[in-house]
């Protein structure tokens, strides 16, 4: 009979008159009838009132209810949950950067502009592209920007076209981004190897197709080895090839998208380049392009004139602005720090050891868990719950049980072509010990699935909360706290 302290909502411990912060007394003569004629509010109803002790305890306690990369392996497939270097956190917040204002004239922010230009240059080299735009705030934003560029280029050629081809294994943002660009999506079936089916592709590729959006390695962690042929097919019919670079972690220094026929791609700095995921952002999704698409890049473009960095707005063909200012700057600083720290050899090692770690896990779990596609894996491997289903155990049960072993579950929501998917991406920053802890846990769970399936179905047992009722949450939405009346 142990009474566990549950963390209340801040509103539930609020008490009139408390405060955790004060301001200096106003040092200017008071203006009477300030904002005369404007509707002012009496108070912010329901807004909390607590002390600094309470704020600190509230968020310290809440933080401890999170699993995170700083606590252990986080094999969330497709998300590249690698270690986030602490020095990058510090440098991204340097006062010289933190205070610099996006509306200041160029001469006053040469340092910030140099950060942007340098990262653009390094990304071009790593991805083999001719130019990069750092505006996009995340991967999906990069996709949208990239597809707008494609549309602009095709319009310039005379016809924006109707369709975008997307493999059935793609991430949900791909079709959604294409749609916002005014394109209809045509799905391309994967073959038994889990890669794009060339015949199928040739069949759907017409001169009404604007582009193919391909993820490479794809979301099965499989490299599209026919990628050059694929690009030819698209290009032959006047289409362009967009690459979702979310899985760039498998390729750095090994192969460059620009060298395999890709016209446009986005990269996730919060994946490949180690910027933290922050519980759901901020990320950054730079877009890289080949020459033909450079004229359409979003404004402003960072230019150089006489050794100074300038903001170039004189881009008649630009798609326009895709966000305010210049991108998620402090995220960009982190990525720059990461590349400068690793250097050429280190950047190549990202891919080498991300792939080694993934294959080490695959090797050790093969047999225990079903592997629908036996094609060689790159940086991640996608198992399924097929074997465990026989015992009435689903990938969800396996995932929740993993929590009891102190490890974060893999991705399960996709790829949709693998039912009951367990998409595992360890990344290169993991130690052998942490990989083995995960492998042992997965093996133990496979055993439990046979011998004691109930312990999986009722998992997790050691978390702050047991399995939560997501159906009820959606059926009777409670989306905010409200004062009990």
């Amino acid at each position, binding site marked *: 009979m142990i009474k566990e302290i*549950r*963390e209340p909502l801040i509103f539930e411990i609020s008490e009139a*008159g408390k*405060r955790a912060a004060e*301001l200096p007394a*106003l040092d200017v003569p008071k*203006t009477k009838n300030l904002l005369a004629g404007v*509707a002012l509010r009496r108070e912010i109803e329901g*807004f*909390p*009132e607590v002390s600094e002790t309470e704020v600190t305890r509230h*968020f310290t306690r809440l933080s401890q*209810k*999170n699993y*995170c990369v*700083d606590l252990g392996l986080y094999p969330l497939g497709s998300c590249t949950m690698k270690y986030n270097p602490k020095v990058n956190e510090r*440098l991204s*917040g*340097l006062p010289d950067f*933190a205070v610099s204002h*996006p509306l200041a004239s160029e001469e*006053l922010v040469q*340092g910030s502009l140099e950060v942007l230009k340098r990262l653009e240059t390094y990304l071009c080299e790593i991805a083999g592209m001719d130019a990069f735009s750092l505006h996009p*705030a*995340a*991967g999906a934003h990069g996709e949208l920007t990239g597809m707008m560029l494609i549309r602009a280029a095709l319009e310039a050629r005379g016809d924006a076209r109707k369709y975008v081809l997307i493999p059935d294994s793609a*991430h*949900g943002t791909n079709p*959604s*981004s294409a749609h916002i*660009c*005014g394109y209809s999506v045509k799905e391309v079936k994967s073959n038994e190897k889990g890669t794009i089916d060339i015949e199928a592709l040739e069949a759907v590729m017409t001169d009404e197709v604007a582009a193919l959006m391909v993820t490479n390695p794809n979301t099965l962690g499989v490299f599209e080895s026919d990628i050059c042929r694929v690009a030819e097919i698209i290009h032959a019919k006047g289409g362009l090839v967009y690459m979702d670079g979310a899985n760039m972690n498998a390729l750095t220094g*090994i192969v460059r998208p620009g060298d395999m026929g890709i016209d446009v791609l986005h990269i996730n700095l919060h994946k490949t380049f180690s910027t933290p*995921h*922050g*519980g*759901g*952002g901020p990320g*950054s999704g730079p877009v890289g392009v080949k020459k033909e698409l450079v004229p359409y890049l979003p404004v402003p473009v960072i230019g150089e004139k006489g050794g100074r960095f300038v903001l170039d707005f004189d881009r008649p063909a630009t798609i326009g*602005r895709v*966000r*305010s200012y210049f991108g998620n*700057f402090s995220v960009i600083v982190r990525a720059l720090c990461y590349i*400068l720290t*690793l250097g050429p050899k280190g950047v*190549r090692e990202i891919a080498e050891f991300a792939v*080694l*770690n993934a*294959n*080490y896990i695959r090797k050790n779990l093969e047999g225990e868990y079903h592997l629908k596609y036996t094609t*060689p894996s790159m940086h991640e491997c996608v198992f399924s719950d097929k074997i465990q289903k026989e015992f009435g155990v689903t990938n969800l049960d396996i995932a*929740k049980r993993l*929590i009891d072993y102190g490890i974060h579950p893999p991705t399960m929501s996709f790829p949709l072509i693998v039912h009951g998917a367990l998409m595992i991406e360890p990344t290169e920053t993991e130690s*052998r010990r942490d990989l083995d802890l995960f492998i042992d846990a997965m093996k133990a769970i496979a055993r439990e699935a046979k011998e004691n399936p109930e312990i999986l179905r009722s998992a997790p047992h050691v978390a702050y*909360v047991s399995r*939560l*009722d997501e159906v009820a949450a959606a059926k009777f*939405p*409670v*989306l905010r706290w409200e004062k009990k009346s």
Partner: protein
Amino acid sequence: MSYLSLSDKDKKEMLAALGVGSTDDLFCCIPDAVRLKRELKLPAAQSELELVRTIEEIGRKNAYSRHLSFLGGGAYDHFIPTVVDYLSSRGEFVSPYTPYQPEVSQGTLQVVFEFQTLICQLTGLDIANASLYEGATATAEAVLMAQRITTRNKVLLARTLHPQYREVVRTYIKNIGLEAVDVPYGPDGRVDKDALGRTLDESTAAVVFQSPNFFGVVEDVQALSDAAHGRKALSVAIVAEAVSLGLLESPGRLGADIVTGEGQSLGVPVSFGGPYLGFMACKKEFLRQMPGRIAGQTMDKEGRRGFVLTLSTREQHIRRERATSNICTNQGLCALRATIFMETLGKQGLKELAWQNAQKAAYAADRLGSVPGVRKKFSGPVFNEFVVELAKPWPAVDIGLRGKGIIGGYGLESAYPELKSCALVCVTEMKTKDQIDRLAQALQEVLS
């Protein structure tokens, strides 16, 4: 410096276990023709000490930080209590991802739930999401949302809406048959209501306006909302300076259907424009059309309260191309900062903060207004920014002020050709009376 965690022994043993001789063999499936045969052309690896020196040196190239600046215009220099920095930098908040696994993400999820609640309280609306990228894209999302709700294909954009926000809206809508029409402003610096009346019609999905607007002038939210509703269009209020909500009546109470905008003012550093924090709140009935993640309350098997991401049938990973938005990763850590900031300042603190901003701006407006050659451009009531018109062209004045170590404001001519030699001056609680007086003094010298 590398961040690998494998010893040479580990590597050897693992490669052996896979039956391959080197990591190279792991990439056999990549056509040799396209493989990179050389080393990447990147600067040599740096140790932490070298990196720190490199980046600090780049930072010092920002002369900006050595000036007294009165820039605002969508990015505001506000006080950030140390607890915000400390708590938001804890690894448990920084290093997890979107809370897909609620049982091990209750920290993040409860924070999002509290954030949604705080945004509802600030905006005076029913529901809010977990964040969007930033103010401009949030505005674009609101426009797309209004189109879905009304199935109408024209939006009216107040010219007093942040110019960059308007540009982004146009970028977003140009490919999907939505038309945007600008609505002019009057001598008071507010939306010209007659002009609005003339452009509003049955095809108008929404009237999109910002308050306080780009000139710092507080719009008549009630009147604009009434006008929109008169034609069954939606009233979409944009807030670029969230601190103003501590003092001004909430747009929700004044008729806005959707309130969205920029939350940077709430504990997020100016940081050269990002990462910031788009927020969005709306009326209950629009829930299914709302973009972005939403956290909801539920129970676990023992009946204990817990939080989860919910209503994801709106989202791309379920709906694919028919999703309400393509957004996936949003601005979680910035939303956390805003949550800590709002809870730290609290009811009294945020109100006083807003009040001090208005007071200092009022003082500055008078003080500058008394300088020969300076006149307040607009007659409308302002929050913490205002437009001054100068007797000399702004570029010259700007240079003159910078010579005195001051960045006096943001020249408006590029965005508003008609506002020749006008500048937007922002005064937050961070500016002392002395600094304001210094600006006035400097202006006097530059103009005389």
